[in-house]
């Protein structure tokens, strides 16, 4: 598929699903009410529902889905490994740990910002540790092993916090948050997370040439003028900013970063940089679709979108693997 056609089609798809996400919810608003509510006219209730509940939710779905797809694509290109996903460098796990620590300390209720701030602090701690290790050792393999170790440690510490949590209700709250959701997020969440994510996207975009050259291995890439240290910084910082901010406001949402690059790679010329924008748009479309579906499947209880993406994503990924082992790359 031509890049322009592919990106255009995915852009239209993501925008349509964005609109769909605005129209779906427990409040039974008609189309006219939704539109007028969004554009500041109409009845009081419709305006509040649209502008303060559905719009931030749809905006976060768009931005977080874009972040997860983009981060997955850049990491797969960087590591020349189709199994890489945003969680692999440990940022999601440390961000989750940061948020859980805030829950445990009881600060979560004090302000809207404490929880995301804790998660962001966790994500940045991970980045500092990873970059310190990378600058001393200077190998991509070390970076990944450190990421895996950080993930395991954060997972263990998260379990410890659950273990020590004062009452079942606190533990339930933590687990529920960890499942990942876009429910009940506000424009403040959008204002907090989206600029950080956008900065992350920019850093990732700047690594486009490097990940193309890395198709030929690190030695050849360096001989093509790629500065490996700078590339590692751009990618680790970019992924940490975008995925850290995403985790901070939505909890952990899995599989989008793994599945979307796979789905779309065959439609590109397979240069890693050609996949970045399509994977971002595809990730946005997938998360918006999943989030709308989560509201429609169980209108009363509402599924957590993180559960839904994993529930659909994992079997789908397995099917993908079975169908085309050779096509993976």
């Amino acid at each position, binding site marked *: 598929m031509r890049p322009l056609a592919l990106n255009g089609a995915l852009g239209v798809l993501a925008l349509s699903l964005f609109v769909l996400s605005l129209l779906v919810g427990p409040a039974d608003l008609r189309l006219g009410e939704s539109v007028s509510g969004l554009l500041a006219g109409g009845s009081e209730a419709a305006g509040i529902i649209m502008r303060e509940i559905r719009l931030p939710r749809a905006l976060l779905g768009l931005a977080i889905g874009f972040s997860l797809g983009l981060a997955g694509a850049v990491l797969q290109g960087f590591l*020349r490994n189709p199994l890489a996903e945003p969680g692999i460098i440990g940022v999601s796990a440390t961000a989750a740990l940061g948020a859980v620590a805030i829950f445990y300390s009881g600060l979560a209720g004090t302000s809207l910002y404490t929880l995301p701030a804790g998660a962001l602090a966790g994500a940045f701690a991970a980045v500092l540790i990873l970059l310190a290790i990378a600058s001393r050792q200077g190998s991509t393999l070390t970076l990944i092993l450190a990421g895996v170790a950080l993930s395991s440690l954060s997972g263990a510490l998260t379990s410890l916090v659950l273990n020590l949590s004062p009452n079942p209700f606190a533990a339930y709250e933590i687990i529920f948050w960890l499942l990942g959701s876009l429910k009940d997020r506000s424009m403040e969440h959008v204002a907090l997370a989206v600029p950080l994510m956008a900065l992350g996207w920019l850093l990732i975009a*700047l690594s*486009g*040439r490097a990940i*193309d*050259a*890395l*198709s*030929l*291995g690190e*030695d*050849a890439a*360096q*001989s*093509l*003028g*790629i*500065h490996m240290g700078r590339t590692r910084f751009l990618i680790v910082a970019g992924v940490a900013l975008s995925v850290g901010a995403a985790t901070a406001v939505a909890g952990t949402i899995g599989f989008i970063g793994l599945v979307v690059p796979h789905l779309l*790679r065959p439609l590109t*010329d*397979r*240069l*890693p940089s050609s996949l970045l924008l399509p994977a971002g748009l595809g990730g946005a479309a997938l998360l918006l679709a999943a989030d709308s579906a989560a509201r429609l499947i169980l209108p009363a209880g509402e599924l957590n979108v993180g559960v839904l993406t994993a529930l659909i994503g994992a079997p789908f990924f397995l099917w993908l693997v079975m169908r085309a082992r050779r*096509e993976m*790359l």
Partner: protein
Amino acid sequence: MRLAIDDIGVVLGGRPVVSGVSLAIEPGRVVGLLGPNGAGKSTLMRALAGQLPFIGRMALGPQDLATVGTAERARLIAYLPQTRTIGWRLKVRDLVALGRLPWRPFGRPASAGDRAAIDRAMAMMDVTALAERIATELSGGEQARVLAARAVAQETPVLVADEPASGLDPAHQITMMQALRRLADEGRTVLVSLHDLTLAARWCDEIAMLMDGALAAAGPPETILTDARLADVYGVTAHRAHDAGGLILAPVDLVGRDGRP
């Protein structure tokens, strides 16, 4: 441009792998880097390509290579690694086009000049017919030529190729050496490591022979590839003949323990 390597040493993991190597390569020459496994050929080439820290001095023309940045170096020296890595199912043409990255400003698509360079490089390595094929589905020898075309497309004054001919069939070994020859004839400086003594004797203007990380000898093939040196460096005997094209050298047997055939 003249490539001057002056008293170069490389230490890897606390062990000196290359030490005290001095070598001058004139433009228009194909210099074959020879030596047994572990002699330090790849290490020297990687240092030259800016991938390993080294002591000593390397200069290209008037420029000290130690002061040249990564991006600038990529416009001076193309490096073809020994390990043949193709990460994704790229089309041959797209892969060869990666050689133009050092010349393309960020975000700019390939220019007409880039496309011409890509076409020339593919023609030189006899992979034009494979342009639309998927590189990972080609045979090993075809992949080797495609990757070599990538380095050629970089169109740098210096080409450093680490065992580009290994794994190629005889016809394509000759294609490869002819291509290096032509690049040198265009005025470029070519350093190529080889294990095949026959190819080295036939196609290189000069031979630099490494042994245990040091330069054992350097000069024209006839004077370097002597029986005594082959016995000393490789521990082999060789049959030699001459024709209009020069020296024909074929390794025959191991040298006995006493140093005699």
